């Protein structure tokens, strides 16, 4: 019998040194909660996280940006509706739309922020069951050609935590049809739709594939001992969210993997 690894024992997901040069900015808004977690995910994936403050006037020399989860401004008005007007957001919007195609990932509140800023279409409303929900969620990677999903296989199923109050993705039928036709549905809920999202959509991208938003939290499935398998043990492993972060790092650094 082979000896089992200790729960939480650091399993050598040796980060590739060549990725360390890639700098990923993680933006903190008032009310952001998962910023340290996103930074940890970047670090564990081998990149260098850079703390950004919503009131900053420039992005510095970051190669990509993560808008992390939380309740910016308490979500009192509408999730992401106020944070969208932060000084740094206009820089991010310009950079994402520019020829340089700054890679941007919005997680949970960050996804809501991306739809509020019109970098992504549609919107998020309250979960159909009207309760906050925290669970381990199976997702299917529908498109592995975006900046943030290149390290996954097309159709790969991953388990990552999901936790939100306003996670029901909605858009008009025409928009939904266009998203499907253009392959811009990046993640879809599998087995259980936790919030009533249209067409089981968990995450989408812009046309260029540099901007991706999703409701579930890949940054909480990046470390052995602290992910879905260790906490709940009902499938998947602890690190199936890491691929989003390695994907963008590889995209930034370029070349063969």
């Amino acid at each position, binding site marked *: 019998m082979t000896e089992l690894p*200790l729960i939480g024992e650091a399993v050598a997901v040796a980060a590739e040194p060549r990725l360390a040069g890639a700098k990923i900015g993680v933006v903190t808004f008032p009310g952001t909660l998962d910023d340290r*977690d996103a930074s940890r995910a970047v670090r564990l994936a081998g990149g260098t996280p850079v703390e950004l403050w919503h009131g900053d006037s420039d992005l510095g020399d970051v190669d990509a940006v993560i808008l992390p989860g939380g309740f910016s401004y308490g979500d009192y008005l509408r999730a992401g509706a106020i944070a969208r007007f932060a000084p740094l957001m206009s820089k991010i919007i310009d950079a994402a739309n520019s020829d340089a195609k700054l890679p941007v990932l919005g997680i949970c509140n960050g996804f809501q922020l991306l739809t509020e800023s019109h970098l992504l279409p549609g919107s998020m409303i309250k979960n159909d069951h009207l309760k906050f929900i*925290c669970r381990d969620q199976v997702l299917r990677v529908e498109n592995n050609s975006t900046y943030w999903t290149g390290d996954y296989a097309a159709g790969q199923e991953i388990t990552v935590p999901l936790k939100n109050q306003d996670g029901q993705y909605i858009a008009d039928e025409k928009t939904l049809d266009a998203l499907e036709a253009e392959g811009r549905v990046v993640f879809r809920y599998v087995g259980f739709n936790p919030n009533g999202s249209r067409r089981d959509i968990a995450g989408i991208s812009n046309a260029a594939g540099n901007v991706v938003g999703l409701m579930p939290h890949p940054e909480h499935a990046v470390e052995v001992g602290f992910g879905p398998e260790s*906490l709940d043990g009902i499938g998947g492993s602890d690190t199936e969210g890491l691929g989003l972060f390695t994907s963008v790092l590889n995209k930034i650094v370029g070349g063969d993997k």
Partner: protein
Amino acid sequence: MTTETTKKFNIDTVENAAKTPDTELPWAELGLKRNEFDEIVKVLGRRPTGAELAMYSVMWSEHCSYKSSKNHLRQFGEKVTDEMKKDMLVGIGENAGVTNLGDGWAVTFKIESHNSPSFVEPYQGAATGIGGIVRDIISMGARPVAVMDPLRFGAIDHPDTARVMHGAVAGIGGYGNSLGLPNIGGEMVFDSVYQGNPLVNALAVGVMRHEDIRLANASGKGNKVVLFGARTGGDGIGGASVLASESFDDTKPSKRPAVQVGDPFAEKVLIECCLELFKGSLVEGIQDLGAAGISCATSELASNGDGGMNVELTSVLLRDPTLTPGEILMSESQERMMAVVTPENVEAFEAVMDKWAVEYAWLGEVTDSGRLIITWEGEVIVDVDPRTVAHDGPVYDRPFARPEWQDTVQADKFTGSVQDAGRPSAPAELAAAVTELVASPNMCDKSWITNQYDRYVGGNTAMAFPDDAGVVRVDEESGLGVALATDANGRYTYLDPYHGAQLALAEAYRNVATSGAVPMAVSDCLNFGSPEDPDVMWQLAEAIRGLSDACMVLGIPVTGGNVSLYNQTGTTPIHPSPVVAVLGKLDDVARRTPSGWREDGAAIYLLGTTAAELDGSEWSNLRGHLGGLPPKVDLEAERALGEILINASRDGMVDSAHDLSEGGLAAALVESSLRYGVGARIALQDVLDRDGVDLFTALFSETQGRAVVSVPRSEEVRFKDMCTARGFEHLRIGVVDAASGQLEINGVDTLSLDALREAHEATLPKYFG
């Protein structure tokens, strides 16, 4: 920043009070007794002003002064051994005690009640309960890292229970989730004794470096006093003195003033803002504003420091400009903090406030006068020795006596009672009994609740509900972490308060040890009925005596907590419910032990012996019986068991461990199987032979000092040797069977895990949607 004071109140100044000694004051309406009012007059040498009366009334309330329990609580500070002191950095009496974790890390934790507000307005009551305890933790200089919530509600099928359940759970989630604090565990008990008095307790834990420990005191003449965070409004006025000090009774006019309303976003910003202040060493002393608001913060800061403070009350930023000085002093508006800042740091302090867009107002400064002087547009409305407000409140030696009914209750054993008729014995009956037990309100799956809480945020949660303890990593480099568990058993404590309180401690201790952590410190939330009832007072006195005695044997100190009295409707009190939280330390959270087994072929051991102890058990509860004596307490055995579990975890000898408590072995076997959906084959004949009990008793008895562990085959010899060397009873009772999908117990019809899971998980959704 200034406040416009457009309205000039009819201010009752100190000067005026001295001149008008005979003015009638509403001391009774403010909850003061005649003797207490007379004492205030004596202390001041004159009648108090309206503002002073407001301050004394809230600070001398049961909630703030512990006047009924103080004489008993003293034991927590007196019954302390050197062993208990060695890791205590800050003891009881501060906002929360601080324990040394090693490597320069310290941890602070505390449990508190928010019971009455949570009955009146479950959402806001529970939400602000979280907010308050989290601010206590920040006040010590710590970053809060997790919360837990022990809940006790009325009967599951009573129509009002759903109101409280939905509100409180949504409130805890709505507030806690917005703070970015993982909720790592708690309890959920349903019992009709809590129908009109639900217990909503909240625990928070925070960590800091040793050098960051902050205390609530105002030192240094000339230092500035600042109030920051949310504005002061009319919410919760009188909440501290009135709401928590009088019980609910249909016959009297209802005393239910506005419950405080929480703003979790403001709290989240306040947390980050405070941590930045600590990082820059910008505050000399800090205090959160909870019960009794500014009255409490000013009098405590001043009396814990150099003893004097001058405050201009019109500088307070208000939500409602019509508030009177007394109301401002009593307001319990949430998300506020008070700090003492040196003049040199004022500018840096303001920069941090501006960065986080937090409002602040400089109220005054520290003096060496020994007086707390509060002015209103320059006119003195409070001039008191702050100690008399904060610390020298009345202390009562309430009469207490063992209730006459106690003997009758204790004589009413479950075995042989009417309710015990038809005790299950055939294999099919036992299988049905096991299923009934794990589907019962108190033993059923609680994920309906916990799935509304964020257990992931922070990325350091290593274990959470339904494991025996919640585990959070503190240091990402070393893996150093803490484990926490809370427990109480109102039924045991009703049967025998002294031992019932000890059983709560023993269970929390065992749960922490089960996770592999070394228990280090205790915080308790003592929920009882009216101290003016000698029966209840006896329960309280016995519970405190029991707890403090047990802490000495287990070698872990009480570092903080709170007392919640008057939890009764009319003359009917709740079961005495001392909720005990134990904190433990794991050198590396990678070594933690989960409660479920997974590895096929691992040997299952039962640690400890089983006696026929069904009184007060969940089985007797299911049959509607409450009488007899609770299970025996053997703290030395608990300590020995704890050491085995901790060593087994450290040396990798077990891959799962689950303590035996409510529901006994039956519950533990089912929970260990369902945790990861892995079955087991169990044979208890050796247990029956050794302990002289029948199969039903072996399954449902709640004898303490026991645990079930699964041991990898490669470790079996080593594990057995360790138990033998320590003289601890252990028997191999079965093996993990990963393929079967069943829990097979010899003499019990085979239970499919699917059917058990369905029964276990269906209960809460059935009642609460």
